[in-house]
């Protein structure tokens, strides 16, 4: 892990983001709109933030966002800057005075001393208040003035907290970043080379905030290359023009495939997601019929479907130190599907058999199953790198989030506005246009717990029936850690409508591989932070 994670009192090591800026710059609005589903209009009624509030949010990585009052300074912050991975500094775009820049520079200097690898994201905010030209001009000016001020400043200002005078700091970096340390970069080099600073033009009233914060999140995600690779493979094998992995409630995109992200496409997907979220809020949920539907995802019902897996022993509890080459099947048909598993040898044996059992797809179709070799190599890469971290401790904690049988999905079909007049739906021509197909890839636990009456009781039945011994083992582990939520991630795929209509089954099957990969990455991310999942005891492996 490149970021230093300090364990907080609950033992969960979260990536910490510091949200700073002068008062009324828009910090709390940003936090509320993104992470608390507040509509932009409602932010008008927010009160001033009086004390620092720490908000936790579980996405691909667990986050802790510190929303500070406007008058906070380096001294009054109360903690060393080294606990943070990112500093988001919000400046009102209309504020062309010195004050925000002075405050910003103070923090940059503190970062230079205590946390040179701090990501610095500057949000030039409230962009909606200005017209286009003024907007760009102010943005440029603020950018320039920050850079100018940084050039002028000398880092040895006397009123900064020097680490030697602050014994409470026990960060591993502190000793190395003393002002007089010979290893310390000098200020000029720091600004030119090391300082990771980005400016963003944002507003809560459009998608610019989401785009900006998505980039902030991506910079904090260590497993980004693996996620991107998963999506690239998916894209190539499904003839998709673009794939996004969104965090559903915040509508931030965690990853996209390697092709450049076009703003308009991103906005369209973001709006589609907003619509999906709205429909998912129980708009058509029926008091009588919906709970019965939820049984689709009941793990209990799936034990009957997988006779071929009965030979595989039920999942060892998370406290066990190793997992035998176990695949993550979510239905019986997938037991032959190449899946990422922890032991690469297990995978290759499986994939050989699966290749022969998979029906040969026509050469012209590029939407074949994901080539097992490339996926298992990705899998081995995944297992290799982070795997080294947990095994160093004697008690290796393996997190395996159980898979559901049913994940919500859907598709929105669009047609180009200028359809040729000769076109009709009954002609033999393929349908023009794009389809945005979406699949829920990881479920936040709350979505399963909501139907508490049905699901949790059946889960506990599963528990008692299959894992009696393992339950005893897990209970002996001291429950020092708090529950750590599985994020709600949605895969959004842009496909030509013709591909979606004719190759739908294959395209959807490929999603399953992505889902398994993403879930594994999410589990590994949580694992590497020394956390354990309580209440989500991985039950049986189907």
């Amino acid at each position, binding site marked *: 892990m490149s970021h230093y994670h300090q364990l907080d009192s609950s033992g969960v090591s979260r990536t910490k983001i510091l949200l700073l800026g002068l008062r009324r710059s828009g910090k709390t609005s940003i936090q509320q709109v993104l992470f608390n589903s507040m509509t932009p209009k409602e932010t008008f009624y927010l009160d001033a933030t009086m004390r620092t509030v720490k908000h936790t949010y579980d996405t691909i990585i667990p986050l802790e966002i510190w929303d500070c009052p406007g008058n906070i300074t380096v001294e009054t912050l109360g903690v060393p800057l080294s606990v943070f991975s990112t500093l988001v500094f919000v400046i009102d775009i209309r504020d062309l005075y010195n004050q925000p820049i002075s405050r910003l520079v103070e923090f940059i200097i503190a970062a230079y001393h205590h946390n040179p690898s701090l990501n610095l994201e500057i949000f030039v905010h409230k962009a909606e208040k200005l017209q286009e030209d003024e907007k760009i001009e102010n943005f440029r000016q603020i950018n320039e003035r920050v850079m100018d001020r940084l050039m002028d400043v000398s880092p040895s200002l006397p009123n900064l907290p020097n680490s030697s005078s602050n014994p409470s700091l026990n960060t591993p970096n502190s000793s190395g970043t003393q002002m007089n340390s010979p290893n310390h970069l000098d200020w000029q080099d720091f600004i030119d080379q090391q300082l990771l600073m980005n400016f963003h033009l944002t507003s809560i009233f459009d998608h610019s905030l989401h785009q900006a914060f998505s980039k902030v999140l991506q910079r904090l995600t260590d497993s980004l290359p693996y996620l991107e690779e998963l999506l690239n493979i998916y894209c190539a094998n499904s003839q998709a023009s673009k794939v996004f992995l969104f965090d559903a409630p915040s509508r931030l995109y965690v990853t996209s495939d390697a092709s450049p992200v076009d703003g308009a496409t991103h906005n369209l997907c973001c709006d589609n997601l907003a619509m999906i979220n709205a429909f998912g809020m129980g708009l058509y949920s029926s*008091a009588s019929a*919906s709970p019965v539907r939820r049984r689709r995802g009941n793990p209990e019902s799936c034990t009957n479907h997988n006779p071929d897996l009965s030979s595989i022993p039920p999942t060892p509890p998370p406290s066990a130190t190793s997992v035998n080459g176990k695949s993550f099947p979510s239905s019986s048909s997938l037991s032959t599907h190449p899946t990422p598993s922890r032991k690469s040898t297990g995978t290759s044996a499986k994939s050989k058999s699966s290749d022969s059992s998979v029906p040969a797809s026509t050469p012209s179709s590029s939407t074949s199953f994901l080539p097992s070799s490339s996926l298992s190599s990705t899998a081995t890469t995944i297992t290799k790198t982070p795997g080294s971290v947990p095994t160093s401790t004697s008690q290796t904690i393996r997190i395996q989030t159980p898979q559901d049988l049913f994940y919500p999905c859907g598709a929105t*079909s669009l047609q180009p506005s200028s359809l040729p007049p000769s076109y009709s739906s009954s002609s033999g021509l393929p349908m023009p246009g*794009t389809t945005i197909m979406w699949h829920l890839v990881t479920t936040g636990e709350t979505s399963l717990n909501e139907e508490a009456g049905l699901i949790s009781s059946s889960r506990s039945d599963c528990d008692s029936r299959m894992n009696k011994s393992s339950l005893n083992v897990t209970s002996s582990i001291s429950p020092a850690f708090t529950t750590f939520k599985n994020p709600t991630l949605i895969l959004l795929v842009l496909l030509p409508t013709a591909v979606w209509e004719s190759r739908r089954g294959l395209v959807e099957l490929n999603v399953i591989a992505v889902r398994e990969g993403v879930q594994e990455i999410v589990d590994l991310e949580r694992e590497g932070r020394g956390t354990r999942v309580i209440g989500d005891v991985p039950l049986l492996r189907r």
Partner: protein
Amino acid sequence: MGASGSGKTSMRSLIFSNNPASSTARLGATIDVEQNHVRFLGDLILNLWDCGGQDAFMDSYLTTQRSTIFQHVGVMIYVFDAETREMNKDLEYYRDCLDSLTQYSPEAAVFLLVHKMDLVQEPKTTMFEKKREEVQKASGDVIITVFGTSIYDESLYRAWSSIVHTLIPNAAVLNKHLNIVAAACSATEVILFERTTFLVIATSTSSSSLPASASIASSPSSISSPTYTSSPPSPLDPHQMHPKRYERTSELIKAFKWSCSRVREEFHSLELDMYDFTAVLDEMTRNTYVMVVVHDPTIETAAIRLNIRMARKKFEELQGDSIGT
């Protein structure tokens, strides 16, 4: 009609011209009467007369232009600003307009919209009730229907769906055929929307009688429940679905359609397979969209689409009939 600045043109812009709510801020005052011919259900043309509300114009409508304005009217929609400071003056003008209407077009339906409800302090229902009483009193014997609305939520769609519903003569026939589709798909509900405005034209009422559909199938003699009090679902209804789902769907789809237009794409169809329900929204005829909501988990969306395709012809026929007057 309604006072100056009460929101008449904004409503028209939102519902009939598919502009987003945010763009209404740029609209200027309407000068005299703006006539709009809106194609509704393809063959039915709605002649919208958006009357500027400034005093000078109002006076002219009630005097020199009286017969022009108030003759051959099918529906009068009078808009009140919920935050108005001149309620008495508004009521006076309203009374005069109502008198003129009963004089020249006694058969016309009257709808009253208490608009800009988003600006009203909580609790909104008390304020709405108060306004409702005032306008009811001012209306005397005339039968009216009152709605509380705002362009920033789904309430406006509810009001307008009710309004246009009165203009569709064969709603009952449509209802019957939607029920057939519902039975074929084992659907809980089937809703028919108009394509451009996405106002609800008809719904299948399955075994339950939902108050929402009751208000849609309203004759002018009913005063529908105001949107700011939630209408309790009928106790006989086993599904107990969200009472505002129709208008909320209209609002969501319209908002998404606008997003699509920004990338020069047009929304065509959608399907959802959620935890709680499965739905398919697809085009039915060239003027209507249908949404089929299913709760049975064994039903595939492809099967629903097939049924919709097979029902198309019948609905095209029906529509030919319904507008044949």
